């Protein structure tokens, strides 16, 4: 079974982010980066399927010049080869979906595994858009995946229980947090990953226009919370709630 997984380079979720003073975006100069944690989970699941049923896992990274670092991480986990679509800057979700759609024409995988969303912009759109563009079945937010022959049975955590979907393959699955615990790449695997191929592709090669449809006009940090205030008695509290806060 051939599985394609997409991996995004995102800011390290353990770091505190700061908005640039001019509001044009996030201050990235002092940030460290890593692979989107949901993508790591997707790769882990793809590798487990490969270990069980054989096949190939291909990691596609869509982003700027540094994206191969994250692709290489996926290769260290055990993926077989990588594709880097160099877009210069991060494209919006729709462009990513259209790039992936073109990659799938080239790669013809049996299954596409994606993280449910990237933890930097939290758009949660690529899997759904991609399914729409290709007319493929989709099962998003997987918490358990069983592959049987030409079908995938996908459990999803929904309000009030577990919903189980069955989709035909080829199809698109996006990984939720509790699907698995991604492995740590071992040193021999890291050394082997050095020799694995990462193919370089540009959006122009694929014939995809990445002009963004969504533009971020301005970013601002949430207003700082003001300190609390002590009131003398309940009467004053009620008065303030009614007249100043206007909540009762």
């Amino acid at each position, binding site marked *: 079974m051939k599985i394609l997984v997409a991996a995004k380079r995102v800011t390290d979720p353990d770091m505190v982010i700061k908005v640039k003073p001019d509001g044009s975006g996030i201050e990235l100069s002092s940030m460290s980066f890593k692979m989107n944690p949901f993508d790591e989970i997707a790769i882990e699941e793809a590798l487990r399927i490969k270990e069980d049923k054989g096949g190939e896992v291909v990691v596609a990274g869509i982003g700027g010049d540094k994206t191969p670092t994250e692709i290489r991480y996926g290769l*260290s986990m055990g993926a077989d080869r990588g594709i880097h679509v160099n877009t210069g800057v991060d494209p919006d979700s729709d462009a990513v979906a259209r790039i992936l759609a073109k990659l799938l024409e080239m790669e013809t995988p049996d299954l596409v595994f994606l993280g449910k969303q990237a933890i930097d912009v939290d758009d949660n759109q690529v899997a759904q858009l991609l399914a729409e563009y290709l007319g493929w079945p989709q099962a998003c937010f997987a918490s358990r995946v069983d592959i049987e022959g030409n079908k995938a049975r996908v459990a999803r955590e929904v309000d009030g229980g577990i919903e189980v979907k069955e989709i035909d393959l080829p199809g698109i699955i996006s990984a939720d947090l509790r699907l698995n615990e991604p492995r740590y790449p*071992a*040193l*021999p695997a*890291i050394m082997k990953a050095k020799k694995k191929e990462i193919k370089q592709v540009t959006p122009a090669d694929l014939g995809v226009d990445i002009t963004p449809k969504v533009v971020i006009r301005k970013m601002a940090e949430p207003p700082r919370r003001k300190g609390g205030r002590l009131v003398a008695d309940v009467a004053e509290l009620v008065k303030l709630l009614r007249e100043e806060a206007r909540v009762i």
Partner: protein
Amino acid sequence: MEFSFTKEQLMFKKEVIRFAKKEIVPRIQEFELKKQFDFESFKKLGDFGILGLHFPEEYGGGGADVITTVLAGEALGEAGVDGGLTLAYGAHTFLCADTIFSHGTEEQRKKYIPKLASGEWIGCMGLTEPNAGSDVASMTSTAEKKGDKYILNGSKIFITNGPIADVSVVYAKTDMEKKHAGISAFIVEKGTPGFSAGTPLIKMGVCTSQTSELYLSNCEIPAENLLGKEGDGFNMSLQTVEWDRSALLAPFVGAATFMLNRCVAYAKDREQFGRKIGQFQAIKRKIANIRIFGEAARNLVYRIAWCKDQKKPLNHLEAAVAKLFVGDWSMGPSNDAVVLHGGYGYCHEYDMERIFRDSRLAPIGGGTSDIQRMIISKLI
């Protein structure tokens, strides 16, 4: 001169830190308070690949060079792993498993290395005796050959992993007439009749590592458990010094970074007299001192590792300087880190007092600072 790490080495270091912070660090305080060995964390180190990192892959190892192996040790310290666990790892991998790997026959390697590399078996080394510490040649444990057996007698003390080890590399004299040249090394397995360990000693630091005496009382082992040839023992124990002065010191280098990160975070957060305490010169000085120690210690320790990778003979003077520096000079920074945290630093929860106690082993274990000064002055 080349002072940079490869991309792969740095990626691996990051991975070790991530692994240790998630899998090991949350368990430390519990085991530190109970003064117990954390078998689960030790096995996790094996599963992750740290215990056998430098052994070839066909023996279940990771095929790493010395620099990468030392980097893993530094990463454990940097993540905040306690000195007890890193010491247990050091004694297991470098003093026991590596001695078997470097001097053992193919049968001995195949029998022991894969299980030691995975952490299924725990190893220790028995060299020190009550009356033979720095003066190894005066050891009195004996090994007498009788047919296809050796009969071992004597006792060992301060043996890291002693009470929990499945495999021990034990040094004893096959020829009492000779001094250094009479010492031989043997593999003794747990459960061998006549071989036992004492109860764990109560120590000042590295509390999660288990240290005890080993007793050999007419302990019969097969003759094939001899490592190398009779009389090779002293040279084998000397060879462990290269690891001792690099990989075993590396967690102390990492711990300096751990302390530094904690101190910086605290100094930026804690306010007194209307200012962050990091703005006071006295605090800045402490922070700078911790950094200076870390930088200097790192260079000394990695130099030993680099020489070993380059197959250069160990420079005993440099090794002694590295050991002495980490041992004696870590006292200042770890003390500074405790004091910088004030009352909190004195409390268990803030980790600094543990590092202070753990670092007190550095000027003692594997040759005291006094012995290092003796070596240095002799070699000048």
